[in-house]
């Protein structure tokens, strides 16, 4: 399945882009994380939430839509 990954905040700096297409077979939350950690080791120590079609998903959820957003917390004010 082709996933459009949208990177927010510091994640776009770590990955060097605001979005990219990744192909993952039978994607799940954890499969996505494994793929991302391999490509960008720095993400292992960066906290973020995964949203699929603008719904936050849990750690073991399957991914059933291509529209992914990765959301880190922001601390600035």
């Amino acid at each position: 399945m082709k996933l459009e990954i949208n990177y927010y905040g510091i994640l776009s700096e770590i990955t060097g882009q605001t979005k990219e297409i990744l192909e993952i077979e039978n994607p799940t939350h954890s499969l996505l994380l494994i793929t991302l950690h391999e490509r960008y080791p720095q993400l292992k120590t960066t906290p973020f939430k995964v949203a699929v079609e603008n719904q936050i998903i849990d750690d073991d959820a399957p991914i059933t839509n291509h529209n992914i957003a990765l959301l880190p917390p922001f601390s600035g004010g």
Partner: protein
Amino acid sequence: MHFYPLFPVDDSMERYYRHIRLAEIGLRGQQRLSEAKVLVVGAGGLGCPVLLYLAAAGIGTLGIMDDDVVAISNLQRQILFGTSDLGKSKAMIAKKHLIELNGDIQINAHNEKLNPKNALEYIEPYDIIVDGTDNFEARYWINDACILLNKTFVYGAIYKFEGQVTVFNHQNGPSYRCLFPSPPEQESIPNCEEVGVLGVLPGIIGTLQATEVLKILLNIGSPLSGKLLCYNMLTHEQRLINLPRKEQSIQQVKARNALVERETPWNCDLTPTLKFQDAIKKKNVHFIDLRGAEEQPKLPLKPILYIPFTELESRMGELSKSALYVFFCQSGKRSKTAVRLMQERKMNNCFSLIEGAPEILRLLKQTKTA
């Protein structure tokens, strides 16, 4: 209906005429604003536009909580302050400017830093709390206090060119912990101080926060409860993320029934630190050696107090509020913790030396030979 309490009717009618003209607001809505109590925690990049718009809108009681003073690097985005305000209390200066803007409302300036001990007390008298802070700790304290006291929490946060806005703990909606269960390591997400921010960004995000406050009070539109607005100012792209309420996260806070003091490693960047070379230039400086009697090398600094770290709590009474205390230890770790302890005791005249004792000795020798 009675309009008399905060309303000298003629003037207010004119001041708020553009509000009152709106069928969705009218006299009734304006009256609601005049009865509302809103606390803005942090009078910085976000807090300034929030305060300006809420004061202009006629929020009856507006609280400002900030213990910081105006620095020149603030002026690029903190639009309540001017060059003549440098070094002065943000809360007091904000109050002064806001009274100028609208003298009909009550403005409470709290020249205090929010902490787990005072958060409940300060938040309790208000209906809505607006987040204008610049660190995770404070956001979790506000969040938990709002859960415990059943207050609406209007959240905003920024990173470089992006912002997040949402409304937490509103009418059984989700809380901050339903999105991010606990604070991250502070080092993993840098703040504006470290990475910079385009000055207008907090203006946009703060204005969105003020919008949410007014919508909630006026009961118009749909507040961002259960929805996280992610905004990118470079592209003007927005995304609304649905946030479910996680009952377990909220019940955990209720069961604890207190705010967590140190959930994460302390944010080093919030501890006032000094370089040794800068410390020796300050007036009325007292050095405090926090090491045990056996730890070497001893330093030829004057005046110096020897207060081993383990005795600090019991010997705090020896320190006065008028002197400037510079703490050091072997590595700089204990001194940081010590300064945080002092801050909790409202002793804001304490700094932690970046260097440890061996490094300081080296610097002293260098200065002598130079």
